């Protein structure tokens, strides 16, 4: 059995033929589309390393069946920078030391972008920590991560305001 579907991945429309219905979105990205930026930590929904945005919402790609997606817009870590210009969240992770080994970082960054879009946390560090609790960091870079999310959010708000003006 093969399933043909169209997905928009990092802004590019791609036609995908799935020969096996068991493929998760995570394995599709990493093993079939040459997008290994999204990481596999636990493969069971417990670590957040595989976080990507599907239609603007952060989800765990390891527990998402690729077959069930159609015409979905998927944003992965490979698609967040504009050429050489990093995304404000990426900049903030570097500036705040929001990483050590870096394995959890793509998931952290995608989760942070999702969190900022959800606009539930505001400038409350406790709400940011709770909102980021689905992303574990084995190196314990949590303090830097929380600061990075708060800082990036400020920068993104300011540049949005500039656009309006």
């Amino acid at each position, binding site marked *: *059995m093969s*399933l043909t579907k169209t997905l928009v991945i990092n802004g590019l429309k791609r036609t995908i033929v799935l020969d*096996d*219905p*068991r493929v*998760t979105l995570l394995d599709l990205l990493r093993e079939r589309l040459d997008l290994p930026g999204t990481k596999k930590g636990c*493969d*069971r*929904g417990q670590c*957040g390393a595989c*976080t990507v945005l599907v239609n603007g*919402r*952060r*989800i*765990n790609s390891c*527990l*998402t*069946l690729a*077959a*069930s997606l*159609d015409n979905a817009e998927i944003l992965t870590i490979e698609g967040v920078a504009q050429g050489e210009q990093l995304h404000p969240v990426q900049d903030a992770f570097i500036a705040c030391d929001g990483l050590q080994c870096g394995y959890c970082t793509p998931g952290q960054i995608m*989760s942070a972008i*999702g*969190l900022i879009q*959800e606009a*539930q946390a505001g400038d*409350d560090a*406790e*709400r940011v*920590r*709770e*909102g980021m*609790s*689905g992303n574990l960091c084995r190196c314990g870079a949590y303090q830097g991560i929380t600061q990075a999310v708060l800082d990036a959010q400020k920068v993104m708000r300011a540049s949005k305001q500039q656009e309006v003006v």
Partner: protein
Amino acid sequence: MKSFEYVRPTTVREAVAAASEPGSAYLAAGSNLLDLMKGGVVAPDRLVDITHLTGLDRIETLANGSVRIGALVRNAELAHDAHFASHFPAVAEALLSGATAQLRNAATVGGNLLQRTRCGYFYDAASACNKRVAGAGCDARGGDNRLHAVLGWSENCIATHPSDFCVPLVAFDTVVEVEGRAGKRDIPLDQLHCLPADAPERDTVLERGDMIVAIRLPAAADRFAPHSRYLKVRERTSYAFAVVSAAAALRLDAGRILEARVALGGVALKPWRAREAELLLAGNQADAALFHRAATAALVDAKPSGDNGFKIELARRIIVRALSLAASGTPARVAALPASAFASGVTHHV
């Protein structure tokens, strides 16, 4: 993972027909089902993907005032729906205390109700488990059972139902709308999940092909909104299942309780409605002594199923705390740490 046939019906009727074939399972977000399939705990021959069905993703207020929530509404969407959250704040708080933002963005209402137990032996295909294989035995008896049931368990199974969402829902008399081979029917949520007794392999009263299409919260439930809380004790403050949780809701008139709702999570194989406590509370002045009596009444039948006697005392205290919090009023906004006993403002002891 065993391979399977993937089918995507376009109507509920087609979905029911496909899922009525032996070996079929409905696929919603898959956040529980795929996990179980990866571990070889379940191995369906056919997945019936219902996520593309239309009309099941709405939150609507019906003419009689009850609120109907489609089975495909995502947990996060429901929790953040301002109208819903203001009418059913304990439900929103319970949802936000469950899993993570990523999982709540995916998880559906129907899938949350039907998620399977988190008993470690159920998850481990190499262990004996009556729920996984009827008659196989139960390795949780005499095993690692700190987190297992203290109410409604049997010698055959001591597991708990892990959902937070279901706890306030059962307190508010939620009804589950089911469509199956014989048409539509309503099942009170309190009667959806089966206690283990002699047949722990059976999770719910649903029959092959039955699909949850929606749940309904009766109009009367939103009168509790000013005094409704969910409280959840976990091994860590976020991203963990409940050790014990409680939903408490009151209708108050000048300090006197007109009506009370109490339910427990993490204590039994179903969300546990504590009607004895509710009866004791109604008609009385809301104070700490009354809350203690009600909590004790809720747990008279509780008994340890292993190394978990502590859960009985914990449940008693959680009920008292949840009732006190409910009496002091629903906060304007869910705390930064939803349902946590450590959330700012709720650290006092009763």
